[in-house]
């Protein structure tokens, strides 16, 4: 059979479909978005595919579907599990009947700008198996196995992937599908299992939870999921988990070249950090005098095997991060693994990259920025202008930021957002600063999807308590930063193709939450945006400005141009104020002066408002 080219996330989606998942649901988040993204808009009989309002909602939907005996998978990035975790704990204590897979993507090395957290810690806290694929192929087979494991133990199973596995594309032979017969939903009203009504119920559920993890431990061992290869007695051993297993061959070659004798080495490639591979650990501890543990981020496996060595009275040296040269920070390459092996074998491993250090010192800094034509630009510039008009200095007025593209106002040339905490936090933080008696008006900025995800409760809080803040909801109609997914506020014509799904207008939501002072403004109209912010800031109580204009990237994909801005070279005095204030990539300054690249300009016209000599004109196209 010809090989297919799939990413780890795409492989996970295909595995879910071929395993009979009834519900595939999640909230977008890099690096997990392509699981749903790759099958979005397609039709699969009897399967519901959905972007939920947030990860907690998605998780709860998937849990109930699995409680009804069906199979479900919920996808999210690491911080999504923080949001879902309240429900997660409750559900895993109850268990499930249908197979439930919680697919979470971590990001060691931080390619997508979120805290470098390791969600295996969540698995440890909730006694849930956490399978860790090391490759695209395993992204398929582990999701497939996770459904079977989940049904075998009657509890949810986490599949924890990482950026370089989930977003790698590889050529794989599609594994054989393990389909199931269609099931009728079956759910029994059983308060002992599905509620937390009383201490006995809760403690019984805790006991059952621990028993499920023990059952998973037996099954993983019986199914040979962990790959154990014992070498010379009294020799060296290496334990890998997740993507570090994939680096094993290459790093062994490196350390051999550095003079290490790797003959007779024992290796253990773990399929999971939890349940602990107790039997495999015992075999390694029995066979080796020293063991290197290779795992990215937190030393969970290292701790587990160290503790087991202690209890078994084995005087085996365990090398890793608690004891050894490896770091808890960043993602690993074969070179990192070889650094650990150098400690294991007592050889020197060094790479001379001095030339590269010197080369990189000449590199031009390339800060991330706002796209040409981005409607958010009008909000940042409007805020900066309004602060000035209100008689304040820029460094006196707190503007809180939120998650997604809207946080780009914290970058040059705007530098106007002060905080980035969590989904929806901008609105609550603005209230906290006000309660702290910050002496100027306080503003919050948030995107439409982020607002619907977690911004509604803090806005209700502000309305109830009459906290005088101004919230700008930057409504571009899409969940943009994660790759243009739909959200409830996305135009109806772009909701699920071929299915009836209703648009929930963010303006209606704000009205419904009791906000009386509400403006809807086009951010391309910079003077209007500025004046509205000034007006709002002077009023008491809660004010909301909905800045409404579609994401320039999405509009651009449908060839929408609003005009073309052109610099009149006769008038231009080459002051570059347009570049300094807008930071727009379409505006270029070179030996021919300042001009606008017509292939990049979408005619938003914001630059026409900032030219001191009116040298920029917006033309019809």
């Amino acid at each position: 059979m010809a090989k297919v080219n799939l990413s780890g996330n795409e492989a996970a989606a295909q595995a879910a479909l071929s395993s009979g998942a009834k519900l595939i649901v999640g909230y977008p988040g890099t690096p997990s978005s392509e699981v749903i993204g790759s099958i979005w808009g397609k039709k699969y009989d009897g399967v519901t595919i959905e972007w939920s309002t947030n990860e907690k909602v998605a998780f709860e939907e998937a849990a109930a579907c699995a409680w009804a005996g069906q199979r479900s998978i919920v996808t999210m990035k690491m911080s999504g599990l923080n949001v879902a975790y309240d429900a997660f704990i409750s559900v895993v204590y109850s268990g499930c009947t249908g197979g439930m897979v919680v697919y979470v993507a971590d990001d060691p090395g931080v390619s997508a700008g979120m805290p470098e957290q390791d969600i295996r810690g969540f698995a440890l806290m909730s006694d849930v198996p956490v399978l860790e694929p090391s490759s695209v192929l395993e992204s398929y087979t582990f999701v497939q196995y996770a459904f079977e494991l989940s049904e075998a133990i009657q509890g949810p199973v986490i599949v924890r992937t990482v950026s370089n596995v989930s977003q790698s594309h590889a050529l794989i032979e599609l594994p054989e599908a393990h389909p199931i017969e269609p099931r009728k939903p079956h759910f029994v009203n059983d308060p002992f299992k599905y509620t937390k009504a009383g201490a006995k119920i809760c403690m019984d559920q805790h006991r059952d939870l621990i028993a499920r993890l023990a059952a998973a431990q037996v099954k993983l061992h019986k199914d040979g999921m962990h790959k154990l290869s014992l070498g010379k007695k009294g020799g060296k051993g290496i334990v890998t988990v997740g993507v570090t297993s994939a680096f094993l061959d290459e790093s062994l070659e490196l350390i051999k070249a550095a003079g290490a004798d790797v003959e007779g080495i024992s290796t253990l490639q773990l399929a999971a950090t939890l349940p602990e591979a107790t039997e495999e650990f015992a075999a390694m501890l029995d066979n080796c005098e020293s063991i290197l543990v290779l795992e990215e981020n937190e030393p969970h496996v290292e701790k587990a095997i160290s503790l087991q060595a202690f209890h078994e009275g084995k005087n085996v040296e365990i090398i890793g991060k608690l004891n050894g040269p490896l770091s808890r920070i960043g993602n690993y390459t074969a070179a990192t693994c070889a650094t650990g092996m150098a400690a294991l074998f007592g050889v020197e491993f060094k790479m001379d990259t001095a030339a590269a250090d010197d080369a990189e010192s000449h590199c031009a800094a390339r800060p991330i920025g706002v796209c040409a034509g981005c409607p958010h630009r009008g909000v940042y510039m409007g805020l900066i202008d309004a602060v000035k008009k209100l008689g304040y200095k820029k460094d006196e007025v707190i503007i809180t930021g939120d998650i997604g593209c809207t946080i780009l106002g914290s970058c040059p040339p705007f530098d106007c957002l002060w905080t980035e905490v969590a989904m929806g936090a901008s609105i609550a933080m603005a209230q906290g600063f006000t309660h702290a008696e910050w002496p100027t008006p306080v503003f919050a900025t948030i995107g439409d999807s982020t607002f619907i995800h977690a911004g509604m409760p803090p806005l209700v809080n502000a309305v109830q308590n009459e906290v005088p803040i101004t919230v700008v909801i930057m409504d571009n109609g899409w969940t943009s930063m994660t790759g243009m997914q739909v959200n409830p506020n996305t135009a109806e014509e772009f909701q699920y193709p071929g299915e009836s799904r209703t648009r929930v207008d963010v303006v209606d939501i704000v009205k419904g939450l009791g906000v009386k002072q509400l403006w809807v403004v086009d951010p391309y109209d910079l003077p209007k945006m500025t004046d509205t912010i000034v007006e709002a800031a002077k009023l008491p109580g809660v004010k909301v400005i909905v800045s409404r204009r579609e994401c320039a990237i999405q509009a651009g994909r449908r060839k929408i141009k609003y005009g073309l801005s052109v610099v009149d070279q006769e008038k231009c005095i080459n002051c570059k104020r347009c570049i300094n204030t807008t930071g727009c990539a379409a505006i270029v300054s070179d030996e021919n002066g300042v001009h606008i690249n017509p292939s990049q300009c979408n005619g938003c016209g914001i630059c026409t408002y900032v030219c001191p000599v009116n040298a920029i004109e917006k033309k019809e196209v």
Partner: protein
Amino acid sequence: MANYNVYLVGVGGQGILTIADMIMRAAQALDVPANYYPTKGMAQRGGFVKAQLKLGAETVGPDIRPLGADLGIAMELSESLKSIRYIKPGGTLVVYGYKWQPTAVMLGKAPYPTREDVEKAAADAGLKLVFLDPADQPEDTADNIYLLAATMRHSGLGEVVSEEAITEAIKARWPKGAERNMRSFEAGLAVE
């Protein structure tokens, strides 16, 4: 087959990931084991983009270690310097010398490397540098296809995936643009 690792860098919007995608499709047609890991970062356009291609190995970690690539392909002058760390001494670096200047550079507030900086860096790292001056590129040709073809001629990539498989992949991907793309490819192959 020997392993062959390719480290690609550029700026979002230039088409650097498309180069990697074409190599990947050629590998697929030839049944060469391949792992392709793109990193787009957060910028939709104008941000640093890299991709790591590992060809020829069945079991392979996705990242290329420092000094682990046989070939570097860069689509932007300044960004080419970021690939040097990953290319092994004796390896090849093909640079398309387009300058995509960040705003601070345009405003004269920040420095930008010269072609000579790149040449010195490549020499210090012991690399064979192939430099394509955009000024020499024929009119109406696609930058990335031009660069890919020049790379096929001047590196060992052609021994891993054939020229024919690459051109077939390009034609299959853009049937309508085949004429211009093949012209771009021929122009790249002609680069001395």
